[in-house]
């Protein structure tokens, strides 16, 4: 095929990708808007809560947030603002959605990255060591992984605190900044992630170790460790990377209880508070942001596949 055709294909692929990404973002925002409005109770009642306010205050709240407009107009106005890059203002936090997201993003990002790092560092050697080993080693490892996946993050966090903070006093209980305050929350978030990653990587490894080229490598006199790390791991990484997009969602879910228990600022706390209080601009802002991250992560992964697996490079043409 000619060069012209190739570039046209690439342009088309990028445009399709961009189009579906926009569709995903629009869908996420719309679903959040509808869901929040389907729950009973009006926004103004939720904002006022169980207080008795003067009629003037009620009127002021309605006027400030345009709550007297029909829903479809509130929806269109919101979409219009997003297109201009304006996420709106929180109903309750006395700041813009962008600044609320901005101030809570860093702590959550820090926690997420440290947890992922921790999960990779632990799960990779664990998978390498346990793949195609004696039965009892595998059974022990899967047992531990099953526990890791199954225990609620909430409970694991409390347990970690009880042992390492209240009993041993190695780490501050909660509300601490700095590295000491990051360890326990990161471990709590990393537990289920590590367990899942180990399982997926090991399964990938075991499949690869059955392949004929592994036999060839061994026949060349390559050591077992060399076969595992140089050849098999690279193949096994593909399913694990696919999994990373999904992992991101899992971690965001874990942030909610962990940030709450450890009194850490972050997106989880922001979202929890906003959903409870029908703070629509914040909820939609967080949803839009996470959808955006998801889109970026999955697009990046598609590129990564090409790097990891040369066979796909041909397929992309």
């Amino acid at each position, binding site marked *: 095929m000619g060069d012209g055709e190739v570039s046209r294909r690439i342009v088309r692929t990028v445009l399709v990708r961009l189009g579906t990404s926009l569709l995903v973002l629009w869908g996420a925002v719309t679903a959040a808007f509808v869901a929040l409005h389907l729950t009973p109770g009006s926004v103004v*009642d939720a904002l006022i809560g169980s207080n008795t*306010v003067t*009629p003037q205050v009620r009127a002021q*709240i309605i006027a400030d947030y345009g709550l007297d407009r029909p829903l479809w107009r509130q929806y269109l106005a919101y979409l219009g603002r997003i297109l201009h890059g304006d996420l709106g203002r929180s109903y309750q*936090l006395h700041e813009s959605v962008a600044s609320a997201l901005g101030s809570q993003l860093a702590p959550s990002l820090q926690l997420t990255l440290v947890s992922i790092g921790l999960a990779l560092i632990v799960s990779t050697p664990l998978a390498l060591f346990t793949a195609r080993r004696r039965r009892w080693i595998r059974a022990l490892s899967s047992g531990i992984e099953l526990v890791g996946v199954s225990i609620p993050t909430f409970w694991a966090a409390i347990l970690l605190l009880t042992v390492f903070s209240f009993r041993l006093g190695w780490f501050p209980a909660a509300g601490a900044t700095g590295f000491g305050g990051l360890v326990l929350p990161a471990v709590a978030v990393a537990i289920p992630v590590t367990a899942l990653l180990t399982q997926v990587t090991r399964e990938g490894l075991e499949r690869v170790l059955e392949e004929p080229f592994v036999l060839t490598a061994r026949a060349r006199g390559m050591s077992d460790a060399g076969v595992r790390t140089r050849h098999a791991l690279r193949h096994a990484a593909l399913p694990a990377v696919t999994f990373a997009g999904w992992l991101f969602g899992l971690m965001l879910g874990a942030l909610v209880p962990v940030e709450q228990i450890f009194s850490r600022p972050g997106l989880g706390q922001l979202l929890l508070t906003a959903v409870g209080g029908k703070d629509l601009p914040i909820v939609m802002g967080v949803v839009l942001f996470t959808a955006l991250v998801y889109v970026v992560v999955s697009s990046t992964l598609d590129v990564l596949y090409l790097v990891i697996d040369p066979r796909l490079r041909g397929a992309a043409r």
Partner: protein
Amino acid sequence: MLRARRPAGPALAAAAVLAAALALAGCGGTDAAGGTGSGTPVRGGTLVYAVNTEPVNLDPHASPQDVTGLFTRPALDSLVALDAKGGVHPWLATAWKISADQKSYTFTLRTGVKFSDGTPFDAAAVKTNLDHIVDPRTKSQLAAGFITPYTGTTVLDDHTVRVDFSRPHSPFLAALATAYFGIESPASLKKGPDYLARHVVGTGPFVIDAFTPHQGITYHRNPDYNWGPEGAAHTGPAYLDKLQIKTLTEDSVRLGALTSGQVDGIASVPPANVRQVKANPRLTILSREAPGGNYNYYPNTASGVFADLRVRQAFRAGIDFRTIVRKLYFGTFSPASSPIAPNTVGYDPATGNLGAYDPAQAARLLDEAGWTGRDAQGYRTKDGRRLVVRWSFAKAFAREQRDVLAVQVQAEAKKLGIDVRFEDGTFTELIARQVRGDYDLADFSWQRADGDALRNLFASASISTPRSFGQNSARYKDPQVDGWLNAALATTDLAQRSALYAKVQQKVLADGAVFPVYVFDYLLGANKRAHGIAWEPQAYPTFYDAWVTGK
């Protein structure tokens, strides 16, 4: 109200329906020091206190949360201080006069007071504060509602102001003593709601360093402070160099932080853990009865099965609330007999003799009301319809094992042949039902250091409508009660007001408009190195007189 987190309005802030968040409170000045231990106070050190919820908005003029009062009280003084008996004492105002028609209050202000930003405190500052509270742009969810007849403030000279009302409003001084009427620096009020939501500047014994949402707040001592409320244990600056309040939402985490010595005190010790804390030689429990509405159940008197007085009376008589409360809380909370707590101004001790457990009488009343049939499950029926009570309940926000309590009440009701069904929901859903009147039973507590709490609970004007929310969950409407409540507004004489409030309590109990459950105590767990923690009339701890000894 629920002290839990309040939705959105916070949110988490936590809250609870009708309850919750709102706890209002009137906080006032300090009264006798509670606190741990004794000895000679020492200057210096830091006290760290952990609470279970945090303000969504730090400006007490706007926020309705009880925790906003707790967070800002160290930095804010009020014009007057309230003692536990309802007596009013000088603070930033040295004297006051009430006009003969009870509509005007003239205050003489203390001289030589300045805000921590250097602005002098004067008559104009008082006017700016009160006008700020009622300004619709402040969106006050609590304070403005306490002074609805407010017409304006006049500066008579630098240190004299007159506050006018369109009609007599006797709860004014008690409201003025709360942190929700704390006097903020006029210079900081000018910076608008967004600034105030994170920064509060006052004349108080402590100055706020930083309020960090989801973490807490830190303060340092105001070295110039020399204008504490009458009734405080000492004068001059606070003893502590620093004060820190941390937000630790989870009960087990807060408790663990206390037992491991990481904090000096915690709010809301779970009743189930009180004995554990008391057994620890390094720790102690300080408790303080909260005035205002007890934790009560309110039957919907306007529609449904409880519209029949006999069914309401049967529910109260046929369930042994006192025994259930005693067994569940091991004596930590006492059973209630009036809608308001014994230490509320205007409490009627005679209510203690009412509401005896009498299942035979309950059965007779239900027979009389026509619920004579029985269905296959043993529930009473009338015209083939089962006697069902729909209870609007927010399990997720239930604190102090109120959900366990509710299940025990449900089991007792079954013995009477009443089918109690929980209609669980979020805070917002419960509010929506409250507005529609779509429930048979509701439950909440409503703290406030004044008998006027009865007006919130039982005045016909406090019934929720789509246009305004009110705490009269019983949807109770009685011209006589409305008359007494209004008469109480027109007199500042405590004896007269108490007599009127006693009549209200007797009448609403006779009418079965409330099933009193338990009296809430603020349970504070403290390390014995912390001393001199005192209480506001609203039952929140204050730290002006507090001091710490070495670790």
